[in-house]
C-alpha cells in the first residue's frame, strides 16, 4: 500500500511539474476529465493518435522544406494540422512553436521555418517522452492496485 501511495505522490509531482514547466496546459486536464468508465483509455488513445499524426506531419514538413521551391501553402497547412492536434491534447509548448512556425511561413522565411521545424521536433520529442513516462507511471499505479489521483 505504501508503494501505491509513493507512486501516487510521484505521479502527482510529475504531473504538476509538467504543468509548471509548461509542457502541458489545461486542455490536458480537460482531456483527462473526458475519460471515464465508459471510455477508460481515452487519453492514451488520443495521445497515441497525436503521436502518429505528429510523426507523419514532421516527416512531411521535413520533405516539404527540402524542396527546391518550397510550397509554403502546403507547409502552412501541415503546421496548422500540427498546431491543431497539439493544442487539442494540451501540448502547449509544441503549439507555441507552431504559432511562430506559421508566422515564418507567412513571411516565406525558409531559415526561420527550418529553425522552427527543429524546435518543433525537439519539443515534440520532449513532450512525447514526458507523456510516455506519465503513462508508464499510471500503468504502474494501476498494476499496484491503486487509483489514478485526480488532479485539480
Amino acid at each position, binding site marked *: 500500500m505504501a508503494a501505491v501511495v509513493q507512486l501516487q505522490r510521484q505521479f502527482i509531482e510529475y504531473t504538476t511539474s509538467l504543468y509548471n514547466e*509548461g509542457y502541458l496546459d489545461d486542455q490536458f486536464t480537460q482531456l483527462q476529465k473526458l475519460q471515464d468508465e465508459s*471510455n477508460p483509455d481515452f487519453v492514451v488513445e488520443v495521445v497515441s493518435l497525436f503521436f502518429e499524426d505528429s510523426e507523419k506531419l514532421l516527416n512531411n514538413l521535413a520533405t516539404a522544406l527540402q524542396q527546391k521551391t518550397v510550397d509554403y501553402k502546403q507547409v502552412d497547412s501541415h503546421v496548422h494540422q500540427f498546431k*491543431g492536434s497539439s493544442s487539442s491534447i494540451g501540448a502547449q509548448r509544441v503549439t*507555441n512553436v507552431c504559432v511562430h512556425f506559421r508566422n515564418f511561413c507567412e513571411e516565406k522565411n525558409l531559415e526561420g521555418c527550418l529553425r522552427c521545424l527543429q524546435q518543433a521536433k525537439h519539443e515534440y520529442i520532449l513532450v512525447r517522452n514526458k507523456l510516455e513516462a506519465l503513462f508508464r507511471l499510471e500503468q504502474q499505479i494501476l498494476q499496484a492496485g491503486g487509483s489514478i489521483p485526480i488532479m485539480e
Partner: protein
Amino acid sequence: MGLKMQANGHGHHHLVAVSLNEQQLGTKRKYRTYFPRTNQGKYLALWIIAFGFAAVYVYRCIDEGHQERIEEGLVSMCDQRARMLQDQFSVSVNHVHALAVLVSTFHYYKNPSVIDQETFAEYTARTAFERPLLSGVAYAQRVMNSEREEFESQHGGTIRTMANKEPSPHRDEYAPVIFAQETVSYLNLLDMMSGEEDRENILRARSTGKAVLTSPFKLLGSHHLGVVLTIPVYKSKLPPNASVRDRIEATAGYLGGAFDVESLVENLLGQLAGNQEIVVKVYDVTNTSDPLIMYGRQTEEGDQSRTRVSKLDFGDPFRKHQMTCRYLHKAPISWAATTTAALGYVIVLLVGYMFYTGAIHIVQVEDDFDTMQQLKVRAEAADVAKSQFLATVSHEIRTPMNGILGMLALLLDTDLSSTQRDYAQTAQACGRALITLINEVLDRAKIEAGKLELEAVPFDLRSILDDVLSLFSEKSRHKGIELAVLVSDKVPQIVMGDPGRFRQVITNLVGNSVKFTEQGHIFVQVHLAEHSKAVHESKSDTCMNGRSDGQFKTLSGREAADDRNTWDKFKHLMSDQEFPFPTSQNVTLMVSVEDTGIGIPLHAQDLVFMPFMQADSSTSRHYGGTGIGLSISKCLVELMGGQINFISRPQIGSTFSFTCVFKRCEKNTITDPKRPNYDDLPTSFKGLKATIVDNKPVRAAVTRYHLKRLGVLVDVVTGIGIAVSDSDMILVEKDVWLSNGNLINVTKSGKMILLATNITGTEFDKAKSAGFSDTLIMKPLRASMVGACLQQVLGMGKKAEQGKVMANGSVYLRGLLCGKKILVVDDNRVNRRVAAGALKKFGADVECADSGKSALDLLKLPHAFDACFMDIQMPEMDGFEATRRIRLMESEANDGSKSEWHLPILAMTADVIHATFEECQKSGMDGYVSKPFQEENLYQAVAKFFESKPTTDS
C-alpha cells in the same frame, strides 16, 4: 482579416460621429433678436441725433408759450399806455374846445364883448388844472390887412412877428394874439401867422373846423418837445355841412395851446406799474417815410427783437401818431423749457447708452456662448474619438503582445544563464501586466463607446461571491486578514443578470481592499437595497460602530469607516423577521465591501472614480496598479442600473457600497436542472446541528450563514464553557480557543472544528496535539469548502460526493446532448477524436467526417443528425463553404416539402475574434465554440439553441 475589418468598422463609426459633430458645429445657433446685432455704434448715433431734434422741438414748444406770454404782456402794456395817453390828450383837447366856445360865445356873440384880456387870463389861470398838459392857451384874432390900422390903434400896439418880435411887415391877413394866459403873456400881439408851423395849423384848422395839431417842435420857453393845438373860432354858427369857403369867411380867430408831450407822457408813465421794464417812444408819422419823434430818445435802446406799435388818435385826422414800446431788457431765457428739454435729453441719452452697452454685452455673451458650445461639441467629439482610438489601439496591441509573451515563454525554455532568465522573467511579468492593463483599458473604452452589453442569464450570486473569495484566499491568509462574505437570506437564490460583470465589480473592489489592507478584515455583504435602507432609516441613533469594551463590533473587531454597519443594524438586517419587500420584477441589491485598510486620503476622495487616478504617485509605486479598475466598476455598476459610492477614513478603512438591479427569476426556472453557474452544495448535512463558539457576533453570523446554506442548524455561543453538547459539531474560532484553550477537550458527542484565518507553526502543533489536526478549516469560509471539510471530518463518503460534484456540473449539458446525433467535421484526427470524446461524454451519439466533402455526403437529405460541429480551416473545402452548401441543399429541399430542414451548425475555431462570428453567421452557421473544446464554452454554445428549440424526440 478579422482585426482589419473591425478596425475599419471603428474608423467608419468614428467618421460618422465626427461628421455629425461638424454638422452640429455648422448650424450656428439662431437667436431671436430684439436688438441690432451689428453697427450698434451707428444706431446709438442715430438715436442721439433723433432725440437731439426731439429735445429742440420740445424746447421750442415750451418756449413758444413763454414768448407768447411776454408778447402779450408787451402788447397789453403798450395798448394800455397808448389808450391812456390818448384819453388824457382828448380831455385836454376838449377843454381847449370849451375855451374856444367860451371865446366865441362871450367875445363875438355878445356885443360889446364881455371878455377882455384880464377876464381871459383869470379864467384860464383858474381852469389851468383842467389842462395840465398845456403850458398855456392864447386867442389870436383874424385881422385882415385892411383892418390892421384900426386893430392896432384899438389895441395900442403893433402886430409883431413871432421870429424877431419886430412889427410885422405887410401881409394879407394877420392873426395877432389878443388874449393870452398869464404863462404865455409874451405872445400878446404876436402874429401867429408869421410862424410857419402855426400858419399851416391855422389854415388847416379854419378850413376843417376841427382841432388840429402841429408836428412836434421845440416849444418856446422850454426844451421839451411839444405840439401846438389850434382850434378855429367862428363868428357865426355854421351848419354842419358848411363848405371850406364858408368856414374861412366865418372865421373870427383861433384858440391855440402848446402841448408839452414829453411831460404828458412822463406823467402818464409815472402813474403806471412796470414802467421800468419798457421803453416807450411816441412818433408823429404823418410823413411815413420820416417819422418825427415826439417822446423818447432818438437812440436805439431796449430789446430790439420785440416791438409793439400802438396807434394814437389825438383827434386830428390829418396827423397820425403812434406809440412804440420795447422791453428795456431782453426777455430772460425760459428756464423751465431749457431744463425740461436738457434733462429729458440727458435721460434719453443715458437710456440709449444703456441699450447700447446692453446690446454689445448680450452679443458678446451670445458669441461667447456659441464659442463654448462649439468647444463643448468638439471636446465631446474628441472624447468619443479618444475612446474609439483606445479601443482600436488596445485591440491592436494585444495581438503582438501575445506574440511577445509567447516568444518570452519560448526563450525561458532555452538554456539561459540565471541573469538572462531573470531578465526574461521580468520581461514576461511586465508583458502580463501590460496585457492586463490593456484589457482594462479596452473594457473602459468599450463602456465609454457604449459597446458593452450586459447579459441576462440566471445565476447564483452566492456562488459567485464564494468564487471571488477563493481568488483572494491565498493573499488574505498570507496577510492574516479576515476575509468574509455574507448574503442576506432575503436575497433570492437565483437572479437574472450578467454574472461576469457582477463578478468583475466585486473582484475589483475586493482586490483593492486586499491590496490596501494589512490587518483587520475585509467584509463583503449583500442585502436587499430596500431592506437595508429601511433598517438604516429606522435606526439612526445608534452609537458609533457599536463600540464596546475597546473593541468594535465589526468582523475583526477593528474600527470600520462606515458607521452605519453597526452590529445593531446588522442584527436587524440578519433577523428573520419578514420584510415586506415589493414583489416587483426587479430586485435591487445593496453590496458593500468593507475593509480596514489605509483608507483614501481626503484630498483624493473626489478622484477615486476617475480613470488612472490613484491617491498619489507613491501609492502606485507602493501598491502597483493603474487605478482604472474603479472607474470601470463605476461604469459597470451604472450599466447594471445602480450607483457606487464609498465612505473612507484615512488609516481606518474604506467601505465601498454599490447597488445593482437584477431581474427576479421566475419560479419555473428556479426549479430547472442545475447549471454550471449555480452552486452545487452537498445536501447531506441537512438537519445536522452545529454550535459556533465565537465572541464576535459578526464573525459568528458569517459562519452561521455558510452553515445555513449547507442546511445545518446553528447555535451561537460566546464562550466554550457554554457550548452545548447535543450538537453534531462545534466550531471554535482560533482566538477563542487560544484564550482559554487548555480548558476544553474534544467532547464526545460532537466533532470539534477549529476555524482560523492563519495559523503559525507552533499554534498548529498545539492544535494538532489538542486533536484538531484534521479538523482545521482555514478561512475565508466558502460554503462548498466548508461542506468538503465537514464531509472529511464527519467521515462521509468523500469519493462518492466528489464524483457527484463532478457529475453535477455537467448534468445540464448531459440533459441537452443526451441521445442527440451529432456530426463532427474536422480534418485533424486528434481534434476530431477529442471533440467526439467530449460530446460522447455528455451522451451524444457522435459521427465524424474528415473533410467538408464527406460531411456533405453524410448530410444528404434526409439525414438524422441533430447538430454539426464544423472545423473552419480545412483543406479543399473549408467550413464556411461546406456550411453554405449544406444550407443550399436544405433550402432546395424546403422549397418542395412542408418539412423545415435546418441543421444547427456550430463552427469550431481556434481564434475567437468577434469578426469570425460575423463570418460564421454570414455563411449560415448558428454559433461557434472555441477550440480546443472546453466544457463551459461548449455549454454556452449548445445551450443557446438547444434550449430555445427543445427537441421532441428525446
